[in-house]
């Protein structure tokens, strides 16, 4: 059976559009609410990234940090995150879920136990921000055995030679970081420049799906819609923070935002 992540890309291609990937932090602002958000945005998002909050994140900007600290403060634990995924999958069996986080959380859980839990909860892919290639080779192999995609990150600083090696070892989906930035930075390079880099990467192995993330908002997403997929994270976390501040319902507001994002890439 094909991994639901690949099916999601296939479906988007049939509809002649980029896949929309969302990122929210597990447990933000509560366990229940983050599950409600996933359920409600799954109508418009093709793939759902669920952040595993960590309190010393070295690659996240202020929006995701705020969400992560909020979730940790509200008591989210690793096992709660698996439960959220499991509960989500009960209602949305074929909707792909990717967990994204930092390696220490996996390391403490135990790599093998972590992957077994992922498998039984229904996780389809993993992004580990601070486990780059070649350090991730062994772990990526373990993921493959469980039919979980290990998603490699590629950056504007990744050399041509390194790109080739990473892509050669990679699973069907990779993640291109649009610019030198933490998550949620202002887009400091033009969409054309980003797409130029994207095309360069795509040419190495056209069969591999490449999504673009970092700095993508309502304003910029339309200009990048020729990519295989686009990830929006900080803009969503910001919407949650804003809703809480204004005592509005984050679930409806985030849902509206995701719908709008989707409309820009159709």
């Amino acid at each position, binding site marked *: 059976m094909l991994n639901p992540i690949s099916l999601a890309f296939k479906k988007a291609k049939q509809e002649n559009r980029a896949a929309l990937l969302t990122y929210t932090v597990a447990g933000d602002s509560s366990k229940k609410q983050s599950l409600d958000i996933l359920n409600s945005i799954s109508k418009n998002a093709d793939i759902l990234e669920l952040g595993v909050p960590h309190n010393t994140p070295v690659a*996240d900007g202020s929006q995701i*940090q705020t969400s992560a600290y909020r979730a940790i403060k509200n008591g989210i634990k690793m096992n709660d995150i698996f439960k959220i995924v499991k509960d989500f999958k009960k209602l949305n069996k074929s909707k792909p879920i990717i967990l994204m986080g930092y390696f220490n959380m996996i390391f403490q859980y135990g790599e093998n136990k972590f992957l077994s839990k992922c498998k039984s909860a229904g996780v389809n892919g993993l992004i580990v921000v601070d486990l*780059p290639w070649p350090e991730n080779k062994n772990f990526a192999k373990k993921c493959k055995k469980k039919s979980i995609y290990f998603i490699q990150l590629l*950056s504007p*600083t990744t050399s041509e030679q390194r790109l080739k090696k990473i892509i050669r070892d990679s699973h069907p989906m990779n993640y291109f970081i649009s610019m*030198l930035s933490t998550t949620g930075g202002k887009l400091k390079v033009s969409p054309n420049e980003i797409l130029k880099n994207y095309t360069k990467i795509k040419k190495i192995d056209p069969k591999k799906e490449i999504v673009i993330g970092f700095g993508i908002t309502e304003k910029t997403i339309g200009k990048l819609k020729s990519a295989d997929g686009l990830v929006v994270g900080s803009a969503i976390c910001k919407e949650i923070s804003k809703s809480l501040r204004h005592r509005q319902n984050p679930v409806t507001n985030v849902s509206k935002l995701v719908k709008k994002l989707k409309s820009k890439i159709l």
Partner: protein
Amino acid sequence: MRIKKKIPLIDQANKLGFWGGKFGGNFVPETLKKPIDDLENLFNKLKKDKKFIGERDKYFKNWVGAPTRFIKLKNLTNHVGGAQIWSKVVSDANGGAHKIYNATVHCLLAKRSGKKFIIGDTGAGYAGKMLSMAAKKFGLKCKIFMGAKDIARQQPNVKAIKKNGAEVIPVYSGSQTLVDAVSECMRYWVANCDTTAMCVGSTVGPAVFVRICGWSTSQISRELKVQLIDVFGSIPKKLKLYNCVGGGSSSFGFWNEFMDYDKKQCEFIGVEAGGPAKSKKHAAPLTYGSKIGILHGAAQYVNQDLDGQIEETESISAGLDYPGISPLHCFLKDTKRARYTAASDEDALSAYKTVTKFEKLRPSLEPSHAFSVAIKEAKKLTKDTIVVVNSCGDAYKDREILIKRLGKKYVEPN
């Protein structure tokens, strides 16, 4: 797990940057892989380059002020009774602490790589102060990341950083101390690594930063070795080297040249920050058996909960207030080459009182932790044992804390 002889410890990591196969490494976002590789290549080349070493030594001698004094604390020795207590007064160095060595080397490297900006983290403010001094000296623009809590408690150093023309960036996330300053500094580097060099303020972070810092602070033990031979004719038969350990840069530098001696001859004692006596929080991952985890790009023993969230620390000494510890020290602990213990806030204050009562030496709260253990152990040792404490920082920066905790009479007038 074994230490190899005749190879500098900083060069004993494997290809992926792990000491003993499990401490250190490069757990970094993809974006940092290239700047780290570039820095690694540059450092590996320059550390073998005689011209570069000459340049380093010139600045260490004429600008940092080498060698720093090695003195006998006669009154303290008489008071304690037991081993001879000596001190390597590293706080003599320009700026008042050992952080100047690493800062100087990072600025020299930044110049070689053509970078115009340099950033750094700081806890007690010394790493920041020294980096701002060196940046000014070498014409680099400098930003220092510092936790808001540390900014409040280490004002003299904050003022010095600003006076040197550097920008102080307050960090409000998490516990607002060193751990958050390092995270924020790394985040800034992720976004600006094309134009900016990063200096990690201790022997922590991705492997190359551990190596550069250890290489730089080893100046301390190079000097000490010469001074010991000058005074005693040879390396003493019973030598004990006491040093406080936060990230571990001064202790590593204080011990490095003695690594190959048998530990029965040259024993290393690292003193971590035990925190307030009544608190469960501490900054002593080695002493209290913290589990191995990943912090700031490296695998190390680190205070954390079962899930892997990094735990808040607590210590009177901002410079030791760090939940992790250098991979080099994890390696030294597991190979049993060094012994680690902790002193509480109260122990450190009491040692500060004792030292300043008997000697014209004013160790900051960080080395006061080391003095506390050295004094306790020296009592039980014989007269032919040479105890040396690295007085790696000056208490001027701790004025306000000392006035608050001990009263004005323990602080020299401004």
